[in-house]
């Protein structure tokens, strides 16, 4: 007789354990669901209070490369780097090229979006080098540079730093900010997308920012 009753307490214990496990999983899912979106939107694309870019002008040998008017009426994704950078720069540009492909699936978005690579190494990067460089990643990408003073004047407005690193003669390195900057159609520095960059994230954050954007009422 006791033999037939013996399993019951065990069954009960197992049932309780299973119930607790299920409750734990459900609770965990609920908690992570309520936490994830907050983390996403607040840290990934650091939204600034958009601030207008002061007039700037990048020229190379007197030839205009980029100015405020080139950014007006469009969303611009800016990335600062240099072509003698074989690791982080091409990886970021490859991600931006994938971002471009993802955006191509959203009707109309690419019509007012431009991707601009700003070289902070005018000593080695000519407009010709830059054109060939950006063309490799995506023919729609734009590559520009200017003299160091002009570059600093632009970069400073977006908290972008760059400085010559180690290495001598033609093989020196340039340390540069790794963020992607988003300039809105009113030529305001609008958001900073921090590294590491993944096309899906950049794509999602950019679309989210566009959705929340208030065009100037006129």
């Amino acid at each position, binding site marked *: 007789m006791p033999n037939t009753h013996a399993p019951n307490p065990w069954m009960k214990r197992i049932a309780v354990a299973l119930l607790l496990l299920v409750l734990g999983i459900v609770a965990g899912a609920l908690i992570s669901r309520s936490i994830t979106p907050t983390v996403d939107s607040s840290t990934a694309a650091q939204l600034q209070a958009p601030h207008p870019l002061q007039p700037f002008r990048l020229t190379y040998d007197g030839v205009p490369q980029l100015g405020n008017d080139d950014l007006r009426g469009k969303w611009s994704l800016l990335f600062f*780097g240099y072509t003698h950078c074989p*690791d982080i720069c091409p*990886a970021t540009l490859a991600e931006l090229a994938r971002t471009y492909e993802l955006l191509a699936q959203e009707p109309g978005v690419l019509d007012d979006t431009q991707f601009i690579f700003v070289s902070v190494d005018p000593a080695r990067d000519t407009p010709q080098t830059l054109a060939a460089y950006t063309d490799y990643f995506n023919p729609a990408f734009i590559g520009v540079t200017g003299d160091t003073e002009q570059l600093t004047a632009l970069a400073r407005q977006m908290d972008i730093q760059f400085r010559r690193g180690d290495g001598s003669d033609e093989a020196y390195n340039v340390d540069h*900010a790794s963020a992607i900057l988003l300039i809105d159609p009113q030529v305001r520095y609008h958001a900073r997308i921090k590294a590491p960059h993944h096309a899906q994230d950049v794509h999602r954050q950019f679309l989210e920012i566009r959705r929340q954007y208030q065009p100037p009422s006129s």
Partner: protein
Amino acid sequence: MKSLATLLTLFFLTSSAWASSQHGIEAHDPWVREAPPTARVLAAYLQLHNHGDKMRTLVSVESPSFKRIELHRSAEKDGMATMARVMKIMIPAHGKVSFEPGSLHIMLINPLAPLKSGDKVDLTLHFADGSSLNIRADVRRGGGGTSGMAHHHDPDHPMGMQKESHGDMKKHEHDH
């Protein structure tokens, strides 16, 4: 008969160079990131496994396809992307070191001819004990993403060993 012998010798020589078991160092998945045709610098990546009982130190790399080669480390710190030369890289006994995007890489400077996906690059790795290792790397188009900076996303990535050798390197970097 003589040509057969030559062939066999050649085969033996190359296969031993590839496997390099006599050195205890083994290279895995060596590849070069394809770059725009005008690029003056490229990066090569691989994993080096040390099957031996002694720590090994990589001091230089040579290739007939480039004027100059250096060992470099990229890093991402306080919002800055940096790249610095490292003079030597320690591979601990029975350990491994990964050269990967966003981190250690073999910096290939001034290619003698443009390289495209599918091309091969011969590299000779020289170690502090005077030994060397020949490897052949594939040129391929690297993304950023998955192969790229994946380790930034993965706190559990086994970087510990690398960090250890990094610490050692830091100490030696200024010896030069």
